[in-house]
């Protein structure tokens, strides 16, 4: 079968929109196993907080406090780059 494969978001094959049905050749060996698409992570969906969940930004602000001066800290951050 020749055509276009349509995949689910999970990466599994949903259907094939067939253009032609012909005898298989050695070139079709690749399709002996059903191919799967790479699942795409939806980072926007992952980023949304659940209802009632505390703000991650608010929790992380000051998460790693330090006694060193701002000058020392700034110099160390610049040196990191």
């Amino acid at each position, binding site marked *: 079968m020749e055509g276009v494969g349509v995949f689910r978001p999970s990466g599994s094959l949903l259907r094939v929109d067939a253009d032609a049905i012909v005898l298989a050749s050695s070139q079709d060996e690749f399709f002996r196993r059903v191919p799967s698409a790479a699942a795409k992570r939806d*980072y926007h969906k992952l980023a*949304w907080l659940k209802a009632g969940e505390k703000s991650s930004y608010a929790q992380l*602000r000051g*998460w790693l406090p330090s006694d060193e001066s701002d000058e020392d800290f700034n110099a*160390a*951050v610049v040196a990191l780059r």
Partner: protein
Amino acid sequence: MHAPYLLDTTVLLHWTRNSPQAQAIDANFQLSSSAMRPLVCEVSLGEMLAFSLSRSWGTQKLRRLAELERHVVVVHISDPGVRQAYAELSTLAQSSGWSLFHGKNDLWVGAAAHAADAHLLTMDTDFLPLRGRAGWSITVLDDKTGLPRP
């Protein structure tokens, strides 16, 4: 729906210290009231760990660093979309003669933001050539003030 922010390593360091720069960033971007988690490139977690070793952080602070991951969405560089974006960004930076090409970690961070369709907040001026470019959403912040560079 607005895009989530991906925080570059230096921005994450300032935020977690609640430095004066973090306060300026919050005033500009209202991150504290955001309904989204920050995105962070996996490479930045390594850079944070390197920073902690170089600053000889104590056990308690190292534990908190390890726990930080629970509050962010980590964009892994093994993500095929990130790898593709890295290849394209590296090629663009090299052919354009940008200094960004030499900062491989920066390329990964940029690629992670691009693949995740996120807005990159960075203090690295190597990203300036990408600002305003189609398909890219970037704010380069001044490292002394935390304010967006003009």
